[in-house]
């Protein structure tokens, strides 16, 4: 197969950036989207052109490293799927594929398709944990957690921190990401003592990082490769209110 791809090229943070169009040959339908880009990069290198920089690691949808906007959609046109899980058989040769980085105020571009998502780590550092030192944990089965609660917590905990929610949101809000962590802990008895403080601190850190507000577009849920529900955002609001009222 042979594809036309229009890719965002940007030298560094300061550069204004622009699109470049390339042709990739010898693509096979089984190839993943990133393997198609690998192939293009090999072809570029051999022509002495500079390869397109993009992030990836596990290439099986779990590490959250990859993340491209493909044809205007974060992680591409397929639902519940990361960019690395997209296959070329899902694309048609007749249409130029447009590839861009995740764009958001909170995610400055480093180079080409690579963005800086360290803001997410700073939000987790602001309370996305339980305060238990190593060695001081009680016997695991001393804490009984009903199966359905554990499952719900797992639904929220499944977030891979890729940032597609931010890229998909018209306001570039990080609410889905932040709320998934807050919800996980709000369901579990572990870390309950710091529940209010956690919600307030994490939300405030999110604001400080320059992410926008949530105005219920639900684009985040549609783009989320792990199908994290926007119900988490409602939980976050509740947790934040409780915390703020308690003066946490």
């Amino acid at each position, binding site marked *: 197969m042979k594809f036309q791809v229009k890719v965002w090229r940007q030298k560094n943070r300061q550069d204004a950036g622009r699109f470049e169009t390339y042709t990739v040959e010898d693509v096979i339908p089984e190839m993943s989207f990133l393997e198609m880009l690998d192939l293009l990069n090999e072809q570029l290198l051999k022509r002495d052109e500079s390869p397109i920089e993009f992030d990836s690691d596990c290439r099986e949808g779990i590490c959250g490293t990859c993340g491209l906007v493909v044809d205007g959609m974060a992680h591409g046109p397929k639902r519940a799927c990361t960019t690395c899980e997209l296959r070329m058989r899902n694309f048609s040769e007749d249409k130029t594929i447009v590839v861009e980085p995740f764009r958001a105020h909170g995610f400055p571009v480093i180079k080409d398709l690579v963005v800086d*998502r360290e803001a997410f780590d700073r939000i987790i550092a602001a309370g996305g944990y339980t305060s238990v030192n190593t060695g001081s944990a009680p016997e695991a089965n001393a804490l009984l957690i009903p199966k359905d609660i554990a499952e719900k917590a797992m639904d929220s905990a499944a977030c891979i*921190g890729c940032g597609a929610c931010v890229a998909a949101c018209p306001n570039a809000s990080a609410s889905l990401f932040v709320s998934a962590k807050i919800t996980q802990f709000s369901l579990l008895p572990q870390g309950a003592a710091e529940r209010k403080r956690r919600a307030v601190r994490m939300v405030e850190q999110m604001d400080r990082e320059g992410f926008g507000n949530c105005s219920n577009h639900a684009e985040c849920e549609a783009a989320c490769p792990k199908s994290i529900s926007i119900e988490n955002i409602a939980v976050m609001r509740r947790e934040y209110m409780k915390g703020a009222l308690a003066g946490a």
Partner: protein
Amino acid sequence: MSVKSPILDAKIPDGPVQQKWSDHKASIKLVNPANKRKYTVIVVGTGLAGGAAAATLGELGYNVLNFCIQDSPRRAHSVAAQGGINAAKNYQNDGDSVWRLFYDTVKGGDYRAREANVYRLAELSTNIIDQSVAAGVPFAREYGGTLANRSFGGAQVSRTFYARGQTGQQLLLGCYSALMRQVDAGRVKLFPRREMLDVVLAEGRARGIVCRNLVTGEIEKYAADAVCVATGGYSTVFFLSTNAVNCNATAAWRCYKKGALFANPCFTQIHPTCLPQAGEGQSKLTLMSESLRNDGRVWVPKTKGDKRPPQDIPEGERDYFLERKYPAFGNLAPRDISSRAAKEACDNGYGVGATGFSVYLDFAEAIGRLGESVIRERYGNLFAMYHEITDEDPYRMPMRIYPAPHYTMGGLWVDYNLMTTVPGLYALGEANFSDHGANRLGASALMQGLADGYFVLPATISDYLAEHRPDGMTTNHEAFTESVKAVDEQTKQLIGINGKKTVRDYHWELGRVMWEKVGMARDEAGLKEAISDIQALREDYWKNVKVGGSNEDLNKSLEFAGRLGDFLELGEVMAVDALDREESCGGHFRKEYQTADGEALRNDDKFCHVSAWKYTGDNKTPELHKEPLEFDDVKLTQRSYK
């Protein structure tokens, strides 16, 4: 007889195996709490091993500098582990115990691991579960609210804890949150998008590292009182493996080149149930949980090159080769045996699929017996993943699988305290060689990474630090200047060659050699060929590679180029080690050493030792040092899966 090497003192404590760790902890020198913050400890890696160590050292009050390649510590490759983590909790009351986990691990490692280490691992396994639950890891639970378990990798007890198919992710996020708490507290400083390219030694001790800032290209230097390397395994030496594309041996290899011995490099594990390669553009292979083998039957056509679709091949013309060869275990035969049998079938022309390099894993019988809904409940997500990747529906036609390199038991040699042969340089997790012998049991790597990181290293490091007080070492020391210079020169050299073949071209070629000749069945002739092939490839690489771009900004081709340079050396040492070990054990199978019916044949008289290799210079054969292994508690026996 093997001679005990004077430089390999494992420092195994005296006393009965059950007492060693507690006695040892009681005798370790401690650092005064008020003084801890005066010590700086570097931890390279943020996977289960590195992340847990950095968090715990921070909690203890040390000043910790923590490095990783990815943009966030949460993305370390531990995140990809699916199946689960073992622990001797005996929650199922099915006869499990620390002793049994210890026994299974020693036996599973085919008697090439240290008893004392393995016992400690089994002992700490229970604390890991407590710690992870306290951190909020949402493990699977029973209706009553207690933790659920499953049996994994052929174990006779149910001791594996899991969080859906995302156990590694959840454990890592637990560990990452503990780490971020220390970042918040100011005790751990994070350095993401950094690649360690050298360890700096002064007066014979590890005193810091040199890394490349992957965004700016700057070569940076950091000083410390001790350095811990938790940089994962080296399966990507095969190019195609189940590991992430950034997995590498570079940090460990640079330690080796500074004098740390590298142990059992040839001990690698090939996982039997991976998705087959689809073409030359493939960048990695996806693992599917081997729980699939509980209900799937492995077969190939009895006729070579039979191109009929599977449903058209009648029962009588199918060879269920695992059931035929290993009737007692059948489709659940251990990883190495299953993998080897599949490759053999394909090499002999019986393979299926477009490339001929895959075998069927067929659920038709199980679906008939149990109904599709039961199968869907058990493996729904795996079937969906398979369908998604291959465009073939495994409910309608058999899956196609093929083995892939998955885990490396070999790594930096460490003593009981996890210290390498370089004072002050520690190795943790998959980066060390310590606990799995010649073959790792399923669900044991997560356990080892967390045991090393949460419990072992934080306890043992104080013994060293108490003896080596902070002395005002800074990066102005000339050892740093020299190291930066060497790293900088190599980086510029790689860019400067500007030859004809890309880094990927070379990596692909190295991968072919490794897979064919240093893969799961090796022989003398093949290994000798591999050594000369790799030498030739390496020579060509340094003359003819094309990296592109500049060293002054983000350049992934350059990152991969540096890593491949190291793989081109490590690959050779793996072959040298495999050639030297004239026996078959665990994942290391030498065709010359097998029983009449094709079983691995160990040679305990000559090879009951750890082989640790010492760097002697570029393009020189390394020097072999042996650490004899003694088995006092688990009797040496040949395994049999017939």
